[in-house]
């Protein structure tokens, strides 16, 4: 094991014992950070890797959360068992929405995703099909349980969420280094060249959207399980902005960057609590300052490195 491979361990170990020293309030802050970290990582596939401008990610998160809430409250199926269902629902929704618009160029795609996010929110407020509960939302989602343990305290959810974060990091790491991830990076840099080299760009763009959205749907499920009450307020344009800021501020396309971004974007407003009303003012100023001083993001993504075995052995070196 080289030094870089030790970094995830060095991060994971303190996180595993940290909640034992914190009170319920700060554990809950860490839970929020974990949820946004997962949302950021899923959005990172779309924005960071595929270079698609998505400012409506909250819509897919909402579809997942509402799927969990509706199925759980009507059919009584345990909420965590619905994880794949929520992922599938959000993924299919993304497929239906993105299919006709995926060819739009950068900023046109941006406003359409904002529009989709707003349409979803308005549909939820207007009690679509009479099943979303209007602006009050849905309450009474059954607490999730794993074997005999019913999850109810922040500490329980802390471990559920952060184990899922670890899983997210693992899955998206595999995706990043797969043929799929390389294709996305290629079409992000130059989609005409990618198309010319036989990469089906429309297909890959669509798949990036579907996978990212599907994952956000599963995060929505966890959110619904944690809150037991969900309402349209939790899925506003503002949420999409936060997720977007996490990706860009942390470092577009860089997983450590996105994780750090989640800590800062969700954690900083908590630290600024002493500023009381001026908290968000300071937060906005901090966002500008961070972009001005680190334009590439806090931890920029590194170019892919492929070692040539012969060179490593010391042969053929000039």
């Amino acid at each position, binding site marked *: 094991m080289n030094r870089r491979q030790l970094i995830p361990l060095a991060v994971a170990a303190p996180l595993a014992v940290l909640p034992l020293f914190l009170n319920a309030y700060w554990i809950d802050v860490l839970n929020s950070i974990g949820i946004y970290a997962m949302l950021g990582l899923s959005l990172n596939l779309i*924005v960071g890797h595929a270079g698609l*401008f998505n400012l409506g990610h909250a819509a897919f998160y909402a579809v997942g959360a509402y799927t969990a809430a509706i199925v759980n409250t009507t059919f009584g199926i345990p909420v965590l068992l619905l994880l794949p269902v929520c992922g599938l629902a959000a993924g299919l929704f993304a497929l239906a929405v993105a299919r*006709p*618009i995926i*060819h*739009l*160029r950068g*900023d*046109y795609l*941006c*406003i*359409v995703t*904002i*529009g*989709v996010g*707003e*349409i979803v929110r*308005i*549909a939820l*407020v*207007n009690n679509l099909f009479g099943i979303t509960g209007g602006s009050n939302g849905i309450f009474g989602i059954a607490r999730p349980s794993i074997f005999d343990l019913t999850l109810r305290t922040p500490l329980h959810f802390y471990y559920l969420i952060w184990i899922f974060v670890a899983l997210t990091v693992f899955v998206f790491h595999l995706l990043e280094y797969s043929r799929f991830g390389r294709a996305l990076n290629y079409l992000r840099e130059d989609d*005409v060249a990618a198309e*010319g080299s036989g990469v089906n760009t429309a297909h890959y763009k669509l798949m990036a959207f579907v996978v990212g959205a599907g994952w956000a749907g599963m995060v929505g499920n966890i959110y619904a399980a944690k809150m037991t009450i969900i309402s349209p307020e939790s899925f506003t*344009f503002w949420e999409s*902005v936060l997720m*977007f*800021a996490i990706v*860009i*501020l942390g470092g*577009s396309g860089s997983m450590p960057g996105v994780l750090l971004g989640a800590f800062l974007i969700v954690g900083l407003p908590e630290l600024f609590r002493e500023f009381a*009303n*001026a908290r*968000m*003012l300071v*937060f*906005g*100023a*901090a*966002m*500008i300052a961070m*972009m*001005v001083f680190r*334009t*590439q*993001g806090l931890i920029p993504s590194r170019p892919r490195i492929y070692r040539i075995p012969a060179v490593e052995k010391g042969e053929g070196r000039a």
Partner: protein
Amino acid sequence: MEQFFQQLTNGLAVGSIYALIALGYTMVYGVLKLINFAHSDMFTLGAYLGLTLLTSLALTDHIGPLWGTVVLALMVMGLVAMVGALLDRVAYRPLRESPRLSAVVSALGASIFLQNTVMLIYGARYRVYPHDILPRVALDVFGLQIPLVRILILCASLTMMAMLYIFIQRTRIGTAIRAAAIDQGAARLMGIDVNRVILMVFLVGPALGGAAGLMVGLYYGQINFTMGWGYGLKAFTAAILGGIGNIPGAMLGGVLLGVVESLGAAYLSFAWKDAIAFCVLILILIVRPTGLLGERVAEKV
């Protein structure tokens, strides 16, 4: 029929307000290829500065309602333009050479900052404009009773748009703005001071946005520090609808959006009012991916 024409004229008035805001988005986008999310707060700022100047100076009592409002509008536009230029200097200028999305996040940060500044100064509650600024009368137009405010807003915004159009098409600096929008590098080689062009854009755009804020205050009578998001988003939608970067496109998109929204709210569903604009946008972009008047950009190979 009565209701139809009332909604139509209301839509035209609201649409022309959207168009004024949309012009700010589209001009900045044309030159910098940046979505200036903080533009919506220029609009809010205009509404609040208008309220302050209105109540503190009482201009309308001294020089009559019409001239009072005109002078007030000019003052608001001047102040908001200065904030716009400052915004560019602080939040965007350091990011000229960096990835485009970084500037977008900076814009979002600036928007949060400005919105909260307004909240801290004026408070979070709704503020009410004085009722007696403009006479609350309705004019008889072809048998229709149309509020005077509505007609004045329509006239004022059309005048401003016409002036902007002349400014862009006929003056030296307007030509420079168009040149910089087409190709910044080439414009620089032709001896155009691109930084001055950008400064100009950040003076004119926010000035129009601020005027739009004042109009909303006068039209609806109440303002809130979060109202910028909604109007900004609609105006940005209008700019995209017309083809972003295209000035007549923003005007057309704004007016069209206002009318469609107003009629949709009246005849389809009021609860879905805000969703109608986005549905129209998506439908139009599926057919014309670069908006109504946007140029079809050939793919470079």
